[in-house]
């Protein structure tokens, strides 16, 4: 179910010709032009068919996907990276549906989360289950990002601890593990049984606070993910799992079996390029030193870093503005085409109105995040579900204001129009719509401003736009990046406000402007 297919124009890509030669239809050519404009806006949203790599919304995943993209481009295979699409479930569904061709995944995640119901005994069993779903795993990249226990390097030296089994000899150590790890069936209890750590007292602690407590000396041991940037940053040592207690979370690319074999060869060619220490180092450079994921990926591939970061910031801003504008414009255009007639019909037929108005109101009450995610099964990821969501949210203000504008016209004016013997069509087009225009435009403006704000949420399902840097900024706790998305979004909303103001002035009939009064 690739909903984007609906929006992608055919190979010819030409919009339908306006049937302007038929006099009776000539007035409708305005609608045709609107439709043609919408079609023109769409190619900016979905590109031709390069290999599409997805990534989850955390740093390591973005770096790995970026490595894949760079490696594919090195091999002259066109590739694109759809960053930070969401959690494991969204990525897995996207690769299965064909929205993306591959993404970095971990064997443990597949076994214990995504395919948990299959109760696979080991990593080897994964291959055949995936094959039946049209998927395959590339050769492992060389590191496992799983649970482990870590200790400060100096403490490790002092006590001579390098392996988990060494812990049993030091019950005096203070162990604090994340609350989740305390509770899990395969967490501390099972670990302590496997290694005979019964004598050690353990406390629960928030994972993010654990690193600070560890470096401050309040605690000695905590649980970590093996490639956490903080391990490198705080000079910690990961204790060796000498009894192979923790399941492996070997990183590899999960790809579609219909992927170009040359691309598969490139992904397999990345096998063994990384180990835990190297991955940790890359995570640290991005998360703590502020290096870009692309540069980190270049470093991992042994490519030279590219200069011109500052230039590309403007380029990025331009790209995002285009993406954001296209999302809002297409959604708003579609909403206008639907909501305007719906508002007119609701005003004309009160019974229809009493159905339509509460219904559009109901749509508005769906939490935006929920709506975005609910649309994924129908429309895939990317621009299509985002546009659909923005479209639905734009309906209410336009329908409601069209209805209010038309029903708010003074009855004597309606009587006068009817008494003149004007047809319903003339009355609507020459009298009622012009009189309702200021109210209708206010509704469209409201819809546009709301859409600009909401479109930032589209980034979580891969629609790009100003939400992308906000998302990345939140992930990296980088306020600069958050502002890089938030400020243009706010400016964009203001520009739209202003543009509508001018537009309203220009098309409001002169007799309705305040300046007409004397």
């Amino acid at each position, binding site marked *: 179910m690739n909903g984007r297919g609906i929006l992608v124009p055919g190979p010819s890509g030409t919009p339908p010709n306006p049937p302007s030669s038929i006099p009776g239809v000539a007035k409708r050519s305005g609608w045709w032009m609107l439709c043609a404009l919408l079609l023109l806006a769409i190619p900016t949203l979905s590109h031709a068919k390069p290999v599409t790599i997805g990534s989850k919304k955390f740093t390591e995943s973005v770096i790995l996907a970026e490595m894949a993209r760079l490696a594919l481009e090195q091999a002259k295979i066109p590739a694109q990276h759809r960053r930070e699409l969401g959690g494991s479930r969204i990525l897995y569904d996207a690769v299965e549906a064909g929205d993306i061709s591959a993404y970095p995944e971990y064997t443990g995640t597949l076994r214990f989360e995504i395919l948990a119901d299959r109760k696979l005994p080991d990593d080897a069993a994964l291959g055949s289950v995936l094959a039946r779903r049209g998927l395959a795993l590339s050769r492992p990249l060389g590191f496992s990002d799983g649970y482990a226990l870590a200790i400060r390097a100096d403490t490790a030296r002092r006590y001579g601890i390098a392996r988990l089994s060494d812990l049993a000899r030091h019950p005096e150590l203070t162990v604090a593990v994340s609350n989740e790890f305390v509770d899990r069936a395969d967490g501390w209890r099972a670990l302590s049984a496997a290694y005979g750590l019964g004598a050690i007292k353990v406390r629960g602690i928030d994972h993010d606070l654990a690193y600070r407590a560890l470096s401050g000396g309040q605690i000695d041991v905590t649980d970590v993910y093996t490639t956490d940037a903080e391990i490198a940053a705080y000079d910690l040592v990961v204790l060796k799992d000498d009894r192979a207690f923790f399941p492996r979370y070997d990183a590899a690319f999960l790809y579609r079996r219909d992927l170009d074999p040359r691309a598969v060869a490139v992904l397999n060619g990345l096998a063994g390029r990384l180990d835990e220490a190297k991955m940790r180092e890359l995570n640290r450079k991005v998360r703590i030193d502020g290096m870009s994921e692309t540069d980190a990926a270049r470093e991992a591939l042994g490519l030279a870093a590219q200069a011109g970061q500052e230039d590309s910031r403007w380029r990025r801003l331009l790209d995002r503005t285009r993406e954001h504008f296209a999302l809002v414009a297409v959604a708003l255009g579609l909403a206008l085409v639907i909501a305007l007639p719906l508002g007119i019909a609701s005003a004309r037929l009160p019974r229809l109105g009493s159905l339509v108005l509460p219904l559009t109101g109901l749509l508005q009450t769906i939490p935006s995040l929920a709506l975005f995610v609910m649309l994924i099964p129908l429309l895939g990821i990317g621009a299509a579900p985002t546009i659909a969501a923005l479209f639905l949210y734009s309906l209410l203000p336009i329908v409601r204001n069209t209805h209010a504008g038309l029903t708010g016209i003074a009855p*004597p*004016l309606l*009587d*006068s*129009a*009817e*008494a*003149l*013997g*004007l*047809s319903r069509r*003339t009355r609507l087009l*020459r*009298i009622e719509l*012009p*009189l309702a225009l200021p109210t209708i435009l206010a509704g469209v403006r409201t819809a546009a401003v709301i859409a600009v704000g909401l479109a930032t949420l589209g980034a979580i399902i891969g629609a790009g736009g100003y939400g992308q840097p906000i998302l990345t900024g939140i992930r990296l706790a980088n306020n600069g990046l958050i502002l890089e998305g938030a400020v243009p979004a706010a400016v964009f909303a203001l520009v739209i406000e202003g543009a509508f103001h001018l537009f309203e002035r220009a098309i409001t*009939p*002169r*007799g*309705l402007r305040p300046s*007409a*009064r*004397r």
Partner: protein
Amino acid sequence: MYQLDAVHVSFGGVEALAPTSLSIAKGETLVLLGPSGSGKSTLLRCLIGLSPYDGTIRLDGAPVRDWRAVRRRLGYVIQEGGLFPHLSARGNVVLAAREFGWETSRIEARVMELAQLVGLDDEQLARFPAQLSGGQRQRVAMMRALMLGPDALLLDEPLSALDPVTRLRLAGELRDIFARLGMTVVMVTHSLREARFFGGRAILMRDGRIVQQGPVAELESAPADEFVAEFLAAESAL
């Protein structure tokens, strides 16, 4: 011109106009008098098909079924003029002629003719309703109603919203226009003095019924009942 046969209007069970039979002759000036809520505006709205009604209304003998088709023969003017604020005075005036496919030259000639009749100039016609005085707005409304050369003019308190000086001047001009065009005029007013001024037949209404009809002088000299006497006395006193 008009023949009303048991015309009856009720809104949700409330009777706005009791079954009324009435004929209006060609060229006649008829004034509908009465207090607020007496049904005089409702009766007028029936005469141009703006109000739903039971019964039959004949125009020149033929029962009216499609009001839109006969409205071009009727002109309608309401209290504040009912001008469309988004159109200029001229835009208001020519709207119906455009709808019925008149040629530009014919429209232009007719606008000039009517402007002269009601005393408006080009500059005033270029203005929007909000930029005109109350009297000018009513003149534009008259032009709009007369544009297609109707057989009858239906006026709903056309002078009520005007100041006394303007009202007097416009009333005089309207009387001249009616006389010159010789058309059927039905005018709603609550003012006995206006009714007297325009002359012709007066119909006094109360609670949706015709109480008395005849020349105003006859109503004054021989009121049919106490209500008529009281209404006329009150109207004369204030």
